[in-house]
């Protein structure tokens, strides 16, 4: 059974088509990335999963339970970290977590609350009012709140936006552990290196539609090879190399980027440059990564 099954989900806000028939499913135990530019529909889709928004048509199931018809079961299986940094200024961290446990029907949950606080480095803030916490600490509380009921499916909507390196590492270590223990994790982020390092499969959204859906490795392999970037002085680049450029030379620029399939392709380019009398002032070799794929897919779908 799929952890999340999204079927033909449409959502419109006035004249804006936020989601135009989205269909895909996420299997149990996956670490799944949901990527796309701002306004692509990621948060709308997550809000529909969480029951915060309602789809105009289509259906979403969490572990087989419809998020509208069987909302109590669906919500109890889902833990969502919202994108907005929200908190209730009336309560301390521990009170907040106890109450969130209670909403999910758990009366005695202190052992797990302590464990979650420990893993998120929140223990020494347990009795602090949430109002007094820094942005990063508030973010940790939001993560802890999403995990109080040990949900089998965890959704994180840009959990690392504006967060320091230390929290990012703490957070990913803990989330990766939960994923190894069998929790399904869905992540949206604008940090593509994070997605590349963590996610085994990725969906890319643009304009409310899925424009790519594949394993992370397969997506990266779509862009074969690497790029060689050189800065030249002296003579201009020989015309014979023009077909190898990854994009046309800008007028007046001395920077050329070549697409290479293998490392053995580097030497002939350098030789041709030497022969023409050009001097290489700077040279870099870029390995293709998720960001290249992302840009290519997004530009290709304009």
């Amino acid at each position, binding site marked *: 059974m799929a952890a999340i099954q999204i079927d033909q989900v449409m959502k419109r806000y006035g004249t804006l088509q936020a989601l135009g028939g989205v269909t895909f499913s996420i299997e149990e135990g996956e670490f799944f990335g949901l990527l796309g530019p701002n306004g692509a529909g990621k948060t709308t889709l997550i809000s529909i999963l969480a029951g915060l928004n309602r789809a105009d048509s289509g259906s979403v199931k969490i572990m087989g339970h419809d998020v509208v018809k069987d909302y109590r079961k669906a919500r109890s299986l889902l833990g969502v970290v919202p994108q907005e940094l929200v908190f209730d200024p009336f309560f301390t961290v521990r009170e907040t977590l106890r*109450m969130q446990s209670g909403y999910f029907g758990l009366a005695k949950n202190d052992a797990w609350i302590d464990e979650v606080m420990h893993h998120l480095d929140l223990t020494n803030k347990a009795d602090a009012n949430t109002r007094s916490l820094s942005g990063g600490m508030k973010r940790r509380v939001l993560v802890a709140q999403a995990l109080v009921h040990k949900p089998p499916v965890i959704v994180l909507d840009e959990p690392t936006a504006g967060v320091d390196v230390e929290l990012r590492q703490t957070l990913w270590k803990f989330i990766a552990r939960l994923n190894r223990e069998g929790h399904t994790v869905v992540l949206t982020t604008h940090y593509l290196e994070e997605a590349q390092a963590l996610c085994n499969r990725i969906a890319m959204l643009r304009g409310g539609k899925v424009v790519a859906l594949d394993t992370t490795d397969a997506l990266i392999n779509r862009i074969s090879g690497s790029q060689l970037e050189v800065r030249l002085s002296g003579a201009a680049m020989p015309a014979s190399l023009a077909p190898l450029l990854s994009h046309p030379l800008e007028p007046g620029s001395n920077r050329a980027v070549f697409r290479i399939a293998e490392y053995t392709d580097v030497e002939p380019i350098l030789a041709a440059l030497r022969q023409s009398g050009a001097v290489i002032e700077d040279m870099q070799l870029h390995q293709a990564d998720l960001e290249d794929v992302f840009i290519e897919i997004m530009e290709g779908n304009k």
Partner: protein
Amino acid sequence: MIGFRTLFYKEVLRFWKVATQTLTAPIVTAMLYLLIFGHVLEGRMEVYPGVSYTAFLVPGLVMMSVLQNAFANSSSSLIQSKITGNLVFVLLAPLSHWEMFSAYVLAGMLRGLAVGLGVFVITAWFAHLSFVAPLWIIAFALLGSAILATMGLIAGIWAEKFDQLAAFQNFLIMPATFLAGVFYSIHSLPPFWLAVSHANPFFYMIDGFRYGFFGQSDIAPGISFAIVASFFVVLAGIAVSLLKRGYKLRH
């Protein structure tokens, strides 16, 4: 059940943590009304034979405090949670609409009744009160607070901004409570305004509540009770259906 209990507890803790503002302040306000109106009108007005004006005023003020604070609790809690965004914690949880309804309404009732009790304990020193029918007192206090807490819930769901809620409070709740016969018997009004007062459900709450003290009222308490109870059923139906549909909460 644990979900309901937790939300109820959270709602109570919320007003308890700011008790000066949510409990003490309205009690002081009600005392001021009693001192000023009682001072000015005592001896000049007799609404029911054998009942001093101050004594007449006490149940009205108690009920007015119950109603206003029951409304204030559910409405301000909801609008604050909506505007600060932390309502999401409740919306993400597997709470049914009945659980949400009961938790918000019962917490509002508790605050209204706590303020009402405080007002009563203090103002009772200033007047000779009788308790002819205590069960009516309890019944109208419970129903009145439930109605206003439910109205607060509806207003909190509907309002998107603080000023919309303030409009609801200032143009609907305040006039309806002040014109419900807190300070006078509606029989002292000209016929037109008497008829208007009969259309005000708040009038029946205060009139019935007062009957419990003096055994005298403008309307028979049984009739008032039936009207007030039906009003509650209608409002509760509206509130639960709004929660069920996710009106203005789940877009």
